[in-house]
């Protein structure tokens, strides 16, 4: 094994150790388990966006829509269909992913700013639907009246509602599953065509890659992951918020990805951690917390263009 592989293995072990023991080391540092859970869920969302942004080179500014659809999908399932947490996650993911697949087919021919604008526009459509369709979605008040259900294994049940640690580990399991699938795809021939498109679209086309079809697949996969993250988020809050579909939420996800480092697989998780922890701490001090997060974002973009993780990796090497 060469030194690069060794370093990679050490980094991976460190990341999973930090995540695995988060409920234990966060408490003495003044954190709490639910905060770690939020980091995981928003980190998964930022990584899902980055699957498209960082590895296909396509910027979507409307990904909150698929996050929000996942949340409503999970909430509506629990409220009206069946009191099953796994079913809520699956249906939430399907709702986000299928809507992403349909709209993605309409926008993959656009590039750059035009792609970003059209994704915002479609995202806002879903925001207004959630906002206006009060009888189903609860409108401005959001969707309430559901809660995550115990995980039923037949012989025994795991309570994830009142036990914060149990819920954290359930979310960590889901996170690991999704991140594992993402990593697997990125290391496959299909994943390498995504990177090819990011690096040089014309060359990709002249290698025989139907570029639009591959971008559509990457977009759709990204929306499935996003929908899953959104479904988890509904379970975290026992609540689905129309503002979760708004383009400002999309902007937050882009910020997390860019701040953490969009060229690295784990960067967006770090970005989400910084974002969520700062938000948690600063919002108890000042209502203008966002301006401080914004300031940090500007500093990172100016001085660490490869993001926080990119900077850490660069200085280690």
């Amino acid at each position, binding site marked *: 094994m060469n030194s690069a592989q060794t370093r990679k293995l050490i980094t991976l072990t460190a990341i999973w150790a930090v995540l695995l023991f988060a409920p234990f080391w966060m408490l003495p540092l003044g954190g709490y388990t639910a905060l770690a859970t939020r980091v995981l869920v928003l980190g998964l969302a930022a990584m899902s966006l980055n699957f498209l942004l960082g590895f296909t080179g396509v910027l979507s500014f409307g990904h909150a829509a698929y996050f929000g659809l996942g949340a409503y999908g999970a909430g509506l399932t629990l409220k009206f269909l069946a009191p099953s947490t796994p079913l809520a996650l699956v249906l939430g993911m399907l709702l986000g992913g299928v809507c992403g697949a349909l709209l993605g087919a309409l926008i993959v021919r656009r590039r750059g700013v035009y792609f970003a604008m059209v994704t915002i526009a479609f995202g806002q459509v879903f925001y207004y639907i959630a906002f206006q369709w009060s009888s189903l979605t609860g409108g401005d008040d959001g969707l309430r009246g559901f809660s995550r259900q115990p995980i039923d294994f037949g012989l025994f049940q795991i309570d994830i509602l009142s036990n914060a640690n149990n819920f954290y580990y359930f979310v960590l399991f889901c996170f690991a599953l999704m991140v594992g699938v993402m990593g*697997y*795809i990125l290391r*496959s*021939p*299909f*994943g*390498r*065509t995504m*990177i*090819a498109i990011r*690096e*040089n679209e*014309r*060359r990709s*086309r*002249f*290698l*025989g*890659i*139907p*570029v639009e079809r*591959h971008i559509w*697949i990457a977009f759709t996969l990204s929306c499935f992951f996003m929908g899953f993250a959104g479904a988890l988020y509904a379970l975290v809050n026992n609540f689905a918020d129309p503002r979760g579909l708004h383009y400002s939420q999309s902007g937050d996800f882009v910020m997390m990805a860019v701040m953490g480092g969009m060229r690295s697989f784990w960067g967006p998780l770090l970005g989400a951690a910084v974002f969520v922890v700062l938000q948690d701490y600063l919002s108890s001090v000042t209502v203008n917390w966002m301006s401080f997060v914004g300031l940090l974002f500007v500093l990172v973009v100016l001085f660490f263009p490869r993001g926080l993780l990119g900077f850490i990796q660069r200085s280690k090497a």
Partner: protein
Amino acid sequence: MNVLEIKNVTKRFGNLVAVRDVSLEVGKGELCAIIGPNGAGKTTFFNLISGFFPPTAGSIAFDGRDITRLATHERVTLGMARTFQITEIFPELTVFQNVRIAAEVAGGYRLRPWINRSEAAQIHSQVEDTLQLVSLAAKADRLVGELSHGDQRAAEIAMALALKPHLLLLDEPTAGMGDQETYQITQLIRRLHRDSNYTIVLIEHDMRVVFHLADRICVLDRGQMLAQGTPQEIAANEIVQAAYLGNAA
């Protein structure tokens, strides 16, 4: 059967006729060079062959199949590979990774989210063979963006070769190169043509290169085919001399 059969293609951009009623047949194993002054329509003609845009009139057949309306990536899948005047590569990937993407796409793996060990090993050895052919094996782990201009062009040709093409289109392969690099690329193309029996169509400005390599030369001028023939015939052609070669030949 001819590899490429182009019949009376015309390409109009508004009022401008970039290519006018040009026909060309390229046989298997042949190396055909297209020459002509700047603005003669050479690159437009290349773009018609490789499918950047469809012709306004005329037809193009490849391996006996009409491809006039096919998209670029479909032509590539049928076995047509191309390099560009300004090198098109993946600069932030290594030489090996650049060629591997081409080999995987050509192997039909592009939509696969997995690859098993024996398939990966086969791709690996195919990439190594290709790098050997273009003399880049020693630089396999270097980032393509860090290589010299000549090596980048060789890497681009390696990507095209990894597609196992029936036809290789090279747009000014020695553009912007010094004498040493021009010589190396010329020798590489000569090997591909003579030893590996590739069918090649290339655009070239450097007359030394053209007369050294080509079986046949086509002269384009103001969008029209002025003359076609062996290097000797073209060198002796008075119309060509007047229009283009001047005293240089």
